[in-house]
């Protein structure tokens, strides 16, 4: 096919549930490509000799390579090609901020729509899994080395998979009763079905990775006691400490952190209460504070739990919102109401300690701040109140302090993050590596995986040669 012909094909749409209907269920929103649309989309790719898209992917997937295989109808081959560098394509194809990573760099983005790399990635991963064609790769002969991984989020899972392939004996310790980190407790079912995460973990189990759940490092065992038994340790404990605003009334009943709200709904399946035992407040007027993915997920969860009004309250403008455009778009379609340039200054409760109103203040944009975004400045006399019965605070998370606090000699930064070498993940302690949100602060799935890959390679070198890389 000629390049000209390829460039005439429009970017293929991915069918999705009707916005009205999906606001009432927890099923996944998009349905994914059919074989025909996938091939059609694959035909758009120019298979560039020097593909700029690859530079945008933190794990450098051979993007034209896997897309060519799709074009030729070899979906399984395409899935395996991706898995050479990315062990979780079904996850990344769904939640990666593609529009800022691989797709923004696609040559076609200069003139029109980029190739839908994420959608294609998700398509082949789903195809392979649904066809039951997921193959456990050949594991290298045993090295006799023992590796401990703390935390089963994307960073930990990547380290575990990579090191197991190289023949190491790998054990993952997870504090919660389910593995997957934010993928199971944070990101909702309608965006990332939990069966997919489970399948990925099962794949690692089949490879021989051992998982120990209900095991809080820093409590039942410390990093030092682990080191007496294992040759190296990877810390992938995430940014699991919820931040609050520190305004009056934040401890009223009905005020949640996004972590609690989403954990109740996702991990504990409170949306299926009383079939599942964990309760959640099903508010009628729910306000979510924040403008990131976490805020969108919370507002859309509130809607699905039966809210009449689900608001996003964000202190800057739509342009500064850190959430993925696609998620903001989905939220708007579903009827989430945006109060932008608005900041809560107090929560007001009734005599039984239940939140009833939020006192807000309008903001205007001033000079850019450290983040390069324009700083919100309060407008005097602009206070107004929004009646609510549930509030979800989604203004961010900072690193979980449990492990740093119980590991002497482990250097941490100003925000409590573990300090680790960017190329190797090595921390200030011998044999102790770290990566993902615990190092960078709340970031993305693919960056956590990228950090995991680099750390795994350095750990391999370290345990095999005693070499610190």
């Amino acid at each position, binding site marked *: 096919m000629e390049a000209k012909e390829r460039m005439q094909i429009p970017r293929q749409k991915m069918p999705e549930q009707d916005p009205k209907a999906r606001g009432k269920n927890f099923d996944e929103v998009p349905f994914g490509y059919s074989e025909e649309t996938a091939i059609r989309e694959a035909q758009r790719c120019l298979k560039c000799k020097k593909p700029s898209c690859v530079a945008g992917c933190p794990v450098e997937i051979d993007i034209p390579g896997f897309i060519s295989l799709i074009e030729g109808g070899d979906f399984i081959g395409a899935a395996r090609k991706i898995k050479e560098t990315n062990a979780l394509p079904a996850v990344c194809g769904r939640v990666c901020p593609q529009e800022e990573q691989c797709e923004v760099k696609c040559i076609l983005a200069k003139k029109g729509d980029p190739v839908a790399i994420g959608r294609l990635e998700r398509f082949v991963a789903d195809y392979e899994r649904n066809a039951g064609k997921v193959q456990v790769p050949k594991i290298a002969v045993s090295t006799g080395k023992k590796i401990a991984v703390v935390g089963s989020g994307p960073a930990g899972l990547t380290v575990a998979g990579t090191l197991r392939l190289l023949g190491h004996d790998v054990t993952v310790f997870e504090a919660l009763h389910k593995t997957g980190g934010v993928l199971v407790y944070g990101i909702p079912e309608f965006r990332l079905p939990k069966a997919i995460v489970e399948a990925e973990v099962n794949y690692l189990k089949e490879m021989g990775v051992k998982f120990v759940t209900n095991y809080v490092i820093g409590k*039942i*065992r410390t990093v030092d006691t682990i080191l007496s038994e294992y040759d190296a340790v990877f810390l992938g404990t995430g940014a699991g400490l*919820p931040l609050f605003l520190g305004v009056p009334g934040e401890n009223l009943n009905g005020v949640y*952190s996004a972590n609690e709200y989403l954990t109740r709904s996702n991990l504990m399946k409170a949306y299926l*209460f009383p079939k*599942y*035992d964990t309760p959640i407040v099903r508010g009628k007027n729910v306000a979510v504070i924040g403008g990131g993915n976490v805020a969108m997920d919370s507002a859309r969860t509130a809607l699905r739990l039966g809210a009449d009004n689900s608001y996003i309250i964000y202190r800057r403008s739509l342009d500064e919102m850190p959430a993925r455009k696609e998620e903001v778009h989905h939220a708007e379609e579903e009827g989430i109401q945006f109060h932008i340039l608005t900041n809560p200054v107090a929560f007001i409760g009734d005599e*039984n300690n239940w939140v009833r109103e939020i006192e807000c203040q309008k903001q205007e944009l001033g000079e850019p701040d450290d983040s390069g975004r324009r700083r919100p400045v309060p407008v005097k006399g602009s206070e107004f109140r929004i009646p609510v019965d549930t509030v979800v605070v989604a203004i961010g998370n900072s690193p*979980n302090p449990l492990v740093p606090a119980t590991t002497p000699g482990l250097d941490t930064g100003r925000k409590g993050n573990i300090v680790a070498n960017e190329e190797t993940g090595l921390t200030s302690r011998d044999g102790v590596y770290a990566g993902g949100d615990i190092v960078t602060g709340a970031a993305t799935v693919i960056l956590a995986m990228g950090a995991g890959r680099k750390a795994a390679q350095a750990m391999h070198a370290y345990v095999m040669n005693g070499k610190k890389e």
Partner: protein
Amino acid sequence: MAKIVKKERLSADLVRMVLEAREIAETRKAGQFIVLRINEQGERIPLTIADADAKTGTVTIIFQEVGKSTRLLGSMGQGDDILDLAGPLGKPTHIENFGTAVCVGGGVGVAPMFPITEALKEAGNKVITIIGSRTKDLLILEDEMKAVSDRLLVMTDDGTYGQKGFVTQALEEIIKSGEKVDIVVAIGPVVMMRAVSEVTRPYKIPTVVSLNSIMVDATGMCGGCRVSVGGKSKFACVEGPEFDGHQVDFKELMMRQKTYMKQEHESLECFLNQALKK
């Protein structure tokens, strides 16, 4: 997975269970708790480690059947498995030789009080223990407590056993008798812990209470367990569960505990209906 090694009913709605949990038994300290999830549909509920045996690799919990989860747990028996068990969680009690320690346990709170009393005694304190319950049949661990205390006082609200009255009355009498009390540790219903803190406040006796706010993960990840202490928000599961009783906002705690009252009723009703059908 944790096997129930032994189950015993202490009173109409109080159950003692011994669970297989070797590593927890080896590492736990006084004041710490576990979180368990009975089955796939279950919620995560926190329960204090009332006792542990590192040799047999077991931990003991004592719980009151109040709602769906604790009733379901109470209906299980020896040999049954609990799907998930995590621990030890929370900060251990700060134990040292304070001098004279008064340990106050009310109702099912006597159970979490036991390991702390034992540890205070081992650290060389003179330990005066006050335990209380509404009525004689609900009193637990009297012999165990006696064994680790220099003096044991028993109170019942209705006077069916020991002295008639509240534990706070006994505490006040001890203080007024001129006994120099260096520390008070109180665990029981929130109203009791508040009352104990009010008794000791004028005397400036350091008072430690153990807060049972509603928890989910109990690893510091959700903030659902937050309590106000000295005007600051604290996560009870990782910064507690023990706090300075003179600083705790008990009123807020009591109201926050009622957050899911409606759902708890619904859940219990469903459970009882199903049990009836069977």
